[in-house]
Structure formats: structure tokens, C-alpha cells
């Protein structure tokens, strides 16, 4: 008989955590993890694995957890994933591994994400580190961007013996893991930094403060600096705005700005010089992970927060856990609502937002029911801050400065899925720069594919 529910995971009390930036979820203890592992049926034909973009041997590692052999479990995960402590925390498990788990048909699925997180945290706490290859093969590869795709690609290449340098535009490596996803979901010093250190421990050099396309171009890296191949993992960082009146008023921010100020630049910590406008009443426009992160950040900085989203709850693209946490913490959801104008006071500051009510019509290309305006239903929300979280697209900085690198009409770099090959010889790409904004695990998988592609390319030369 299977226990019908997951072993509950300990979390910070919603009232307490709404006022701090410490991690919300406290994770399993070894006993809890072993108990949860008992729920896995060790399927012969494990559906869960097909739901994981990097095909972690899920039953394999869970069996080791069941036996209490965590080090072995961590090795099994390590064969497929370079960032398990991150993915265990931020993967949308409900639509990936856990969404396919057989136990989930009648009961709650096995808590694969939390188990993975436990194993990765345990390995870190017990100092299990990847081994540095004894000798390099003398071939130099450049990786652009230090997000999940770049880190994974660099790590894989280093393991194969390549001399890898990562070039990062910002002053800290980590990409969205550092500037976007907040501390309370993904601790920087505790979880992200050690994952980056692991990559460095493999011999990878990280040079920050280098903007490829500005400080140096890809062609120069190849022709002047002796790199034989390049992987582009530059993400999709360009924020979109709605184009409605009042959007340039003081107090309107992109989620990227708001989150960067708080995460990368640590505005929440008074030791840091970064200013941030906290606002008393904040609207976050959008319904993805980014919107949830911005909303919960504003809440922690002391604001009353409304998430304004034009579809209904079931269409919210954010992870279920984030929506649940946001609600518990007191974020208010104004669903089926769309902004039409930002109202501005005489000094140029936001004073409110005019919105219109929506209803769901026929499904659109994405299969989700299309929101349509209800005529005459306009109303005003009184606000002092608006955070736009409408999605991002790849920055054209690299594509526009690299000869012969093809992009599609959304400015995404065109690259093949299995090897990351682009239209330019020796140049590979993957992650959000290729797909547009997606997920950590997909970016990681693409980094892995790129490493494979580069290895094939350089070994056949």
C-alpha cells in the first residue's frame, strides 16, 4: 500500500517568511527523504524519466536514497545533471518528472524534486566535489554567459579535458540564478555559489565584466585569442513592456530591474548601496515565475501586492508551488484583469492603473483560452508602483556583432537541438538565447548538448 500523500516538507511559517529573505522551503531530513523514497515503485519502465529533460535515472537514485546511500545517489544524479541543488528547487516538477510519475495517477506523485534537492544538499554539506581532470587536452573553448546553460557546457567540456573560459557581462556569475530568482527560493551563498565553485574546481576560468559584442566579439575570440570553438549561452534578458500610456512614469519597473536591484545588487540588505523603490501598493503585471518572484519580493519589502493577470488561475504559467506560496504569504491575485493605462501624478509618479476585466474565449495557438475584454468594465486600481513582468527576449548584442550567425524573427539564435550547432562554424548555442525564456533544466540540457557538439567538432578537426 502506498502512502497517498508526499512526506510533507518543512517550510518557514508564511507570516514569518513574508518579512524575510531566507529560504521558504527547508527541505527533507535524511529520515524524511528515506521515508519519501519508500513511495517510489522502482518502475521497470519509469515514466518519470521521460518527463525529465535531462533523463536523470530517477528510480536509480531514489533506490539509493531508500537504502540511505546518499553519496551513491548523488553520483547517479551527477551523471545527468550538473546543477541538482538548483533544479530540485526550481524545476516545474508538476509538468515534468512528477507530472509523469505513476504514483501520481491515484495519489500524490513521488516528491522527486525534493528528493533530488536533498541529495544535492547532502553532497554539498559533505563536501562531495567533482574531480578535476588530471591533464587538459590543450584545446581552448570560450563560453559566453554563466547561466545554467553556460555553466553546464563549461563543466562538461572541462571534464573532457578542454581549457574553458566563461565570459560574463555582469560582475557576478550565475545568470538568472543570481540576478533573477530571489534568495528566498534559491539561496545565493548557500546553493548557487557552491555550484559555481564546482564548475571552477574543474578548471574552468570565469572572466566577469566582459560584454561579448562590446568588449570583444566572437570573431575576435576565434581569430585573435586562440579559442577554437564558442558556446553562446547568453540567455533571454531583454524585458518587454506593454506599450500602454504612462509606462515610462516614475515607479514603473521591469521585473528584471526590480529583481536585479534586489538579488544581484542586494538592495534588501542595508549594507549595500543599491537603492530600490519599495512602494506601499504594488501591482505586478503578468503570471509567470518571474511575476511571482517580483510579487513576493515586493511583499517582503513591505508592500501590499496585487498580481494582475489577464487569464484565469488555471492558466498561470508559474510553478504551482510558487503560486501557492505567494497566496499563503498574502499576495492578492487580480485575475482576468488587464491594464490599459498607467495613471500618473503631476510629478511624473505612478498614482494608479486603469484596468479592464477579461473573460476567456476560444483557445489560441498555445491551446490556452484567449482572454477577451469585457466592454465597459474598466476600473481603476490605486497604486504607487507597477512591475511589468511580461516576458523577455534574447538580447541582439551578440547576434548583431557576429558575422554569419543566423537568428529567427524573434531574435533567437538558430541552433540545432542535439548538438547546439549554429549557422557559423565552430559556434554553438543553447538555452534561453536559442529557445527564448524557458527553464533552468532545459538550458542545462542545451549546455550539455553544446558540449557534445563542440567535442565532436574539435575531435574531428
Amino acid at each position, binding site marked *: 500500500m502506498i502512502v497517498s500523500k508526499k512526506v510533507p516538507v518543512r517550510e518557514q511559517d508564511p507570516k514569518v517568511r513574508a518579512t524575510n529573505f531566507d529560504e521558504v522551503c527547508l527541505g527533507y531530513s535524511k529520515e524524511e527523504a528515506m521515508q519519501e523514497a519508500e513511495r517510489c515503485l522502482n518502475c521497470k519502465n519509469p515514466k518519470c524519466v521521460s518527463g525529465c529533460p535531462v533523463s536523470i535515472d530517477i528510480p536509480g537514485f531514489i533506490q539509493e536514497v531508500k537504502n540511505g546511500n546518499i553519496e551513491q545517489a548523488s553520483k547517479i544524479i551527477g551523471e545527468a545533471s550538473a546543477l541538482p541543488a538548483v533544479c530540485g528547487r526550481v524545476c516545474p516538477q508538476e509538468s515534468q518528472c512528477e507530472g509523469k510519475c505513476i504514483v501520481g495517477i491515484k495519489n500524490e506523485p513521488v516528491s522527486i524534486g525534493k528528493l533530488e534537492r536533498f541529495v544535492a544538499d547532502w553532497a554539498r554539506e559533505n563536501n562531495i566535489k567533482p574531480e578535476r581532470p588530471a591533464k587538459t587536452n590543450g584545446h581552448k573553448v570560450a563560453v559566453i554567459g554563466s547561466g545554467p546553460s553556460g555553466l553546464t557546457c563549461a563543466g562538461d567540456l572541462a571534464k573532457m579535458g578542454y581549457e574553458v573560459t566563461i565570459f560574463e*557581462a555582469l560582475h557576478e556569475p550565475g545568470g538568472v540564478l543570481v540576478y533573477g530568482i530571489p534568495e528566498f527560493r534559491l539561496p545565493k551563498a548557500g546553493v548557487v555559489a557552491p555550484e559555481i565553485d564546482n564548475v571552477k574546481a574543474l578548471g574552468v576560468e570565469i572572466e566577469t565584466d566582459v560584454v561579448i559584442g562590446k568588449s570583444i566579439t566572437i570573431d575576435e575570440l576565434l581569430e585573435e585569442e586562440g579559442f577554437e570553438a564558442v558556446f553562446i549561452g547568453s540567455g533571454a534578458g531583454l524585458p518587454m513592456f506593454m506599450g500602454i500610456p504612462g509606462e515610462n512614469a516614475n515607479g514603473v519597473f521591469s521585473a528584471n530591474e526590480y529583481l536585479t536591484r534586489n538579488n544581484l545588487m542586494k538592495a534588501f540588505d542595508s549594507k549595500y548601496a543599491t537603492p530600490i523603490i519599495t512602494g506601499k501598493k504594488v501591482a505586478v503585471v503578468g503570471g509567470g515565475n518571474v511575476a511571482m518572484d517580483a510579487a513576493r519580493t515586493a511583499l517582503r519589502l513591505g508592500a501590499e501586492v496585487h498580481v494582475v493577470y489577464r487569464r484565469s488561475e488555471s492558466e498561470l504559467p508559474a510553478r504551482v508551488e510558487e503560486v501557492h506560496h505567494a497566496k499563503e504569504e498574502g499576495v492578492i491575485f487580480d485575475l482576468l484583469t488587464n491594464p490599459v493605462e498607467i495613471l500618473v501624478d503631476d510629478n511624473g509618479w505612478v498614482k494608479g492603473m486603469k484596468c479592464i476585466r477579461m473573460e476567456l474565449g476560444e483557445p489560441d495557438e498555445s491551446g490556452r483560452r484567449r482572454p477577451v475584454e469585457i466592454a465597459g468594465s474598466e476600473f481603476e486600481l490605486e497604486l504607487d508602483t507597477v512591475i511589468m513582468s511580461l516576458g523577455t527576449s534574447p538580447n541582439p548584442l551578440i547576434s548583431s556583432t557576429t558575422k554569419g550567425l543566423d537568428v529567427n524573427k524573434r531574435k533567437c539564435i538558430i541552433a540545432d537541438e542535439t548538438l547546439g550547432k549554429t549557422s557559423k562554424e565552430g559556434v554553438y548555442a543553447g538555452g534561453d538565447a536559442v529557445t527564448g525564456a524557458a527553464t533552468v533544466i532545459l538550458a542545462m540540457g542545451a549546455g550539455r548538448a553544446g558540449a557534445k557538439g563542440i567535442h565532436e567538432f574539435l575531435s574531428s578537426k
Partner: protein
Amino acid sequence: MFEIVNARELTNNIYLMDVKAPRVAKSCEPGQFVIVIMDETGERVPLTICDYDRKAGTVTIVFQTIGASTQMMAKLKKGDSFKDFVGPLGCASELIEEDIESLKNKKILFVAGGVGTAPVYPQVKWLKEHGIDADVIVGAKTKDMLILEDEMRKAAGNLYITTDDGSYERKGMVTEVIKDLVQNQGIKYDCCIAIGPMIMMKFVCLLTKELDLPTIVSLNPIMVDGTGMCGACRVTVGDEVKFACVDGPEFDGHLVNFDEAMKRQQMYKSEEGREILKLQEGDTHHGGCGHCGGEK
């Protein structure tokens, strides 16, 4: 770490530093900027590239102390380092993209206000190196606030200096000088490049629009990353919203919505920052516009 190989105070509260940053020095062009971070807890501060030495691998910055970050930066000495120094950012000045021969047939006027003299200098110098003499107007509050005079004298064709209080050379605002050159002396300029406080650029643009003189300005909105990732730097130019850090910082001044840009620049102003800006804008009023009629 990026070592400061030379640091000096040019005048009261305006500092010049040469910083070792070989990658930036190698690839930068006039019109571009850098972002510097002092230390672990510091902000990302954007500063225009004022000069560079490709051989020595150094980049020159000139900054005025405004609020906490720039005041702390002013304390750095030769031998100290910036934690971060990233660039070059933004687009190079349009001038250097143009064909040299067609540039040689153009009469170019630069208008620099206050610390804006620093970013004007490399462009004037670049033209000089390519055999082109440009006219330059420099406005300062008072004689003591004037910077880079000797350097500018060497690089410029005609240099017109004006001070608010008349303590040096001409007395009055930069717009007065433009009027004098164009209307009284009948000089026909093909383009004008104005860099200085927003308020100065605004009034220069109002005037040059009347004079039908195409004008480029260099905007300095609030920035975070400087790579197009945050949108903090957005400005309205004509009907479009542009990100100054990647689409600029130079724009067609006749299309820029300066009132919006000035409001946005106030967003995070510290109290002391506001004070200094008031002072600065006050002085460019007297040193600059002739239209505004107030210390608002």
C-alpha cells in the same frame, strides 16, 4: 580588480582617473561609456569614456561627486582599484561611423556643459586626429569649475568659453554663444553635439531646432546593468521607447522627450544628490539656456 594608475582632482569636486582596463581600452570608441563598481557593496555607476590609451591599456574617466557612490569614489587614490570596470558600453558616436571625407566638408559645433566637457573631449580629439577642426563651446559656472581647458584648446578649432558669472572669458549661457555664432557671426554649422546636464541639453535643443541645426545629445538616465537587461534607462525618442544603454547614449536631440527624462533621472536621487543637481541645473540655467526663466 582594475587598478587606478593615475588620479587627480581637476577642480573642486571633479576628478579624473586613468584606470587599467586593457579589454576596454582596446575596443572602446568615443561616445561610449563604462560601468564601475567600487567594492563588494557598491553600486554600478555609469561614466563616459573620456579618453583612452590603447597601448598602455588605460581608460580615462572624469566624474563629479554627486551622492554617496561618487563621493566614495573620489577618495580612491593612485594604486587603489575598482572592483569592476565593464565596457565599453553603448554605441560609438555617430561621427566616427561617418565617412571621413564627408566629415571634412562638415562644420561641426560641440556644446559642453560642466562635467559634460569630459565626454566631449574625446570626440573633438578624435576629429583633430583625423584632420578635422571642430568649434567647441564650453560652459562652466565659474572659472574654477572649468575642466580640461588646455587639452581642449589643443584639440578644438575655435574654443569659446563662457562662465555664468563672467569670471572667465565670456559671461552668460552656452545658448547665448550659439546664438552669437550662428545669428550674429553668420556661421553655418552642419551639426551640433551637445553634452551636459539634461536641462542644458534641453534648452540647446529648443534653440537649435529654431535654428534648424541638427543636434545630437548624449543622455545619462539611471542605469543598472548597461547591457539592455533592465529597462531602467528607457527614454522616449520620437514615438519610440529606447534603451539608452544599448540604443544610445547618443540620440537626435530634437526628438528626445527631455521632460520625461529629467523626471526619471530624479527617481533614486538622494537628498544630497538632489541638492547638487539643483545647483548644477541652476548654474546651467545661467550658463546655458536663456529660455527657462526659473530655478524650478
